[in-house]
């Protein structure tokens, strides 16, 4: 078979250009590279500052991690310190400095506290699980795990006194806590902070396929600065930024000749609204940033979210169709969360999250507090084994 010169030149040119174009599009998959970086990072002692802004609140968790069995955390919300905790092997010390805050941090403590009257086992002042999850408080199920082993009156009195309470065997079994309810981001922000890098790993797994992780490349053909909420990496200082791919929309089912389930399949999951980047320096994680925003997704010229919601059977009011992006975003978020909860899926959580990693390899001061009152902490915010991300 003879190949013309022109055809031959075209084939050669396309073979040469393919990798260049791939590079331009930023499609070189860096998933394994980022996994190795995360593994290196979590193999060292370290300090985390985890902050999450959500629903008008800001939660901050500071965590000093010596290793997976020795760490301490402090958890504050909107500037108020809510809890401090130290785990040293089997021992666990807990302090809830502001007794009034105990009601917000640990509903199980609040409802069973002597003298307050019983509101009912497992009840929560925060309302339903989904509401609790959305606003970032421990969900009733999480608190309800305390029902396995309820704290005694002495423990509750000590906790409500605002001092440290120490349980020499309070760290529990060497296994993760298993509950009937899936643990969602926001159910327990201390756990979220400790597991933040595992969360990144899980997100990569969920994306799957090639190109799940790419290096920041503002010259890529598919890069849009207006959809990028994060600062560019300081490359002069040796900083790299790894970006998790945002999945596109599934094909739209349309209205005619399709089932309701098919039309609901056309609605995007939480990952569609998420930008997640990991800043790395000297082969170690320095910072993780995540932004989940419906309003930003509305800037994407390819999106047709309101039409898809209408396809799925939810009427879109005219005031929303013609409303400002913020109005549309609020409506879309509400509708999607309701649909996801109905389908037992992880609900969309609109937030800005940041994890700053420091003190890598340096000794962390993780010691049990002096003068703590001794009591069993069984049933008080039980987490089980949380650091298992190596």
């Amino acid at each position, binding site marked *: 078979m003879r190949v013309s010169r022109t055809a031959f030149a075209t084939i050669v040119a396309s073979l040469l250009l393919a990798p260049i174009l791939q590079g331009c599009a930023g499609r070189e998959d860096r998933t394994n590279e980022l996994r190795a970086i995360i593994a290196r990072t*979590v193999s060292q002692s370290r300090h985390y500052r985890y902050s999450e802004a959500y629903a008008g609140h800001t939660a901050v968790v500071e965590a000093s991690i010596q*290793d*997976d*069995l020795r760490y301490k955390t402090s958890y504050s919300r909107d500037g108020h310190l809510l809890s401090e905790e130290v785990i040293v*092997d*089997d021992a666990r010390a807990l302090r809830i400095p502001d007794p009034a805050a105990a009601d917000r941090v640990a509903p199980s403590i609040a409802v069973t506290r002597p003298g307050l009257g019983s509101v009912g086992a497992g009840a929560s002042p925060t309302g339903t699980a989904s509401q609790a999850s959305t606003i970032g408080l421990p969900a009733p199920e999480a608190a309800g795990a305390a029902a396995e082993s309820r704290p005694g009156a002495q423990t509750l009195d000590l906790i409500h006194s605002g001092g440290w309470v120490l349980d020499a065997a309070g760290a529990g*079994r*060497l*296994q993760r806590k298993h509950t009937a309810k899936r643990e969602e981001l926001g159910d327990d922000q201390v756990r979220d902070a400790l597991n933040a890098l595992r969360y990144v790993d899980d997100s990569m797994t969920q994306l799957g396929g090639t190109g799940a992780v790419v290096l920041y490349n503002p010259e890529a053909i598919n890069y849009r600065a207006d959809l990028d909420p994060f600062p560019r990496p300081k490359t002069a200082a040796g900083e790299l930024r790894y970006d998790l791919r945002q999945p596109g929309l599934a094909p739209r089912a349309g209205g005619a000749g399709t089932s309701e389930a098919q039309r609901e399949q056309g609605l995007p999951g939480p990952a569609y609204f998420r930008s997640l980047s990991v800043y790395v320096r000297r082969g170690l994680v320095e910072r993780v940033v995540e932004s989940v925003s419906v309003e930003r997704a509305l800037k994407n010229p390819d999106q047709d979210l309101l039409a898809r919601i209408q396809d799925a059977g939810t009427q879109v009011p005219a005031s929303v169709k013609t409303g400002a992006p913020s109005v549309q975003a609020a409506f879309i978020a509400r509708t999607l969360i309701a649909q996801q909860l109905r389908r037992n899926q992880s609900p969309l959580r609109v937030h800005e999250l940041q994890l700053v990693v420091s003190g890598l390899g340096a000794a962390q001061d993780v010691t049990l507090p002096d003068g703590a009152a001794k009591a069993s902490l069984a049933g008080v915010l039980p987490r089980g084994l949380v650091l298992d991300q*190596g």
Partner: protein
Amino acid sequence: MSRTTSLLLLLLAAGMMAASPAPTPTPPAVAPGASATPSAGSAPAKHCAHLDAPVPKTLADFALSEESVCGSLSQTQRVPAVSALTLYSVRRADQLLIATLEVGRLKPAFDPSSSAVRGTITAQVGDTSPERLKVGNTIVYVSQARGLSVLTWFRKRDFYVLAVRDIFDRPRTMLREALAASQ
């Protein structure tokens, strides 16, 4: 490392746990600081390949006793990857078995620093996929078996398997002490 090897190890530990006698009033365990010596009537037979690996004398204040593993599942000639094996038991004062510590030495053909060898061993010890824990400078693989937490780690040519009953409330202390002694 054959699947048989690791299964034998776990079976041995699980079998001991199951065979643990009912609590009976007996003298308390050897005081901390006492040496780990073969328990009465269970001295290793001469034909067994005994392993002198570093182990603590006590774990969480309970004495270790070396158990005889000869003539049982763990005869090393039946476990081709292992050149020597020693099993210790940890019993409460009432003789209830709360943990076992097994130390095995791999034959030169098996490189314990290889992730493939480690993965093969840890994936088959316990009923659940192993989770990696960083404890001090050591990676410990944690899995669960019925009523047990099974902790595995490696030192040069040796591997350690600490199986702790879930009823015992200080497994991390035990692990930390065993790790320190095995350095």
